[in-house]
């Protein structure tokens, strides 16, 4: 796609999503508080999540590219320029990991999928957080270190078939101005930002920390950067040093996040099926645990700490990134269930049209095989990635066994009927 068309498409999608966010805030705060009849809960928890993973699989980090929070932040930065650099001690993913887990926790604890008002508040909090952080700190500190959606997208986009990269690496090697990183000023004195996530194109590897913001493409005076096709997961095969990120073996925070990303996918799906209720009942009866907060915390500790400790091999942590395709396939299987079974439920809300019930979404006879197929492909892709990462037979056996256990757990969860409890109105 030509450079101007690409940049205009980016701006158009940011503007569209900004106004859509405003609609969802209004609808969530002042519309019907019954979740299936409210566009906010519907579009955020069903369509946005489903489209997010779909676009990550077929293209790349589309939602970071079109992020409305950043458009608002950019507009605010016209008036206020940030003065500070993000603190060096916090230049890691730990806060982002905490926020990601917090989103997963409060999604369950506050039943966000059933609460339009709270969903609208989540959108507002995202806007305010991005504004506050990026008006105080330079670059894209919110995106790189904090945004839970961004952290998810960064990992998931390692499976994407597209990547922002140099067209001709020799042109980059001869470049002395490093506009892709530092930005530049044109003759009319308009600043062109460089990469605010601190990724230098000739040394950038893969999609980690890349928001597809295209600032590098805009700034490059040689028109030497493009969104190019590549083999999905190829960026995981080697533990090379990545510009702005480092190498996986030196980033314990990233490795922990990959584990949370994978087992969080299992947990998020598990919370909606009967065994979750059984565990809660057991804890209530035998340990007299009555607090909903603590009951949920136990499930989080079980899935995010105990299960990984039990299932994953302890040695050679540099192989942990091979989990990403399988983890992402669990997210896809879960989100595509909700998207496909309720894909047209927004039509009566937007248009007042009545559509036949059986046309509102795909039947389980179609959706379930898709879920199983996605899980199978994710497992296969993780195995393939692992085989590229190591040639040691014992390591391969141990990790493939872990993949199969995780895949089996995911299959079991996806095969159980969904149930929604504790969601009566009021």
């Amino acid at each position: 796609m030509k450079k101007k068309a690409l940049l205009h498409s980016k701006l158009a999608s940011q503007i569209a999503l900004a106004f859509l966010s405003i609609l969802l805030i209004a609808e969530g705060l002042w519309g019907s508080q019954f979740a299936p009849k409210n566009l906010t809960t519907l579009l955020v928890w069903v369509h946005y999540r489903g489209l997010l993973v779909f676009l990550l699989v077929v293209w790349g980090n589309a939602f970071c590219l079109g992020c409305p929070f950043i458009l608002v932040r950019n507009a605010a930065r016209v008036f206020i320029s940030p003065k500070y650099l993000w603190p060096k001690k916090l230049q890691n993913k730990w806060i982002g990991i905490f926020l990601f887990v917090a989103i997963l926790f409060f999604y369950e604890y506050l039943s966000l999928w059933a609460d339009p008002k709270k969903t609208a508040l989540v959108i507002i909090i995202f806007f305010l957080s991005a504004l506050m952080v990026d008006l105080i700190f330079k670059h894209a500190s919110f995106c790189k270190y904090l945004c839970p959606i961004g952290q998810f997208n960064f990992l998931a986009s390692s499976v994407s078939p597209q990547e922002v990269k140099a067209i001709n690496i020799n042109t980059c090697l001869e470049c002395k101005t490093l506009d892709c990183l530092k930005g530049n000023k044109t003759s009319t004195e308009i600043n062109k930002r460089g990469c605010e996530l601190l990724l230098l194109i000739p040394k950038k590897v893969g999609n980690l920390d890349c928001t597809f913001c295209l600032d590098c493409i805009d700034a490059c005076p040689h028109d030497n950067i493009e969104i190019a096709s590549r083999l999905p997961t190829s960026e995981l095969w080697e533990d090379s040093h990545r510009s702005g990120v480092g190498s996986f073996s030196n980033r314990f925070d990233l490795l922990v996040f990959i584990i949370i990303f994978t087992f969080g996918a299992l947990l998020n799906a598990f919370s909606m099926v009967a065994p979750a209720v059984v565990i809660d009942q057991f804890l209530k009866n035998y340990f007299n645990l009555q607090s909903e907060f603590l009951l949920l915390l136990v499930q989080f500790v079980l899935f995010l700490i105990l299960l990984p400790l039990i299932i994953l091999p302890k040695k050679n942590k540099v192989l942990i990134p091979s989990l990403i395709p399988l983890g992402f396939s669990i997210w896809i299987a879960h989100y595509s269930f909700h998207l496909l079974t309720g894909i047209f439920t927004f039509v009566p809300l937007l248009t007042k049209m009545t559509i036949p019930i059986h046309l509102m979404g795909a039947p389980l006879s179609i959706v379930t095989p898709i879920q199983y197929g996605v899980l199978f492909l994710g497992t296969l892709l993780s195995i393939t990635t692992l085989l590229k990462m190591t040639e040691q037979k014992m390591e391969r056996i141990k990790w493939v066994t872990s993949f199969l256990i995780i895949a089996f757990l995911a299959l079991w969860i996806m095969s159980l009927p969904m149930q929604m409890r504790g969601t009566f109105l009021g």
Partner: protein
Amino acid sequence: MQRKVLALLFFAALITTLLIFKKSSEKKLTTDNIPADSIEVSWSYTPKEITTQHETTFKFTLTDKNKNLIKNAIIKIEANMNHAGMVPVLADATITTEGLYEAKIKPTMLGDWILFLTITLSDGKVIKKEFYFKTI
């Protein structure tokens, strides 16, 4: 200067849009034609355990303030769950005896269900009622 003007216009557009959508969202909320408590609706169902494996027969009795049975009403039922993306189960109640209305519904999912009744009386007035049940 131009960028500042554009940024200001953008923020103004966002705020204006918010106010327009606020009005639109509030307008969409419907109100009952008549107070819901002017009519009593009692209900029962068989079998006693509601599951996703079979139909449940719901029976509704409509009475006015003087305990007189209300006849010839039309009851449309929407069975739904309070989570986004849910496809409802729809049914129209049939009149079995004077003032008794019946509908068969098979819930499609485990969990907490809400029955939304839209009752249209013979004089055209509309009342809405809700009932709650759980599937096991």
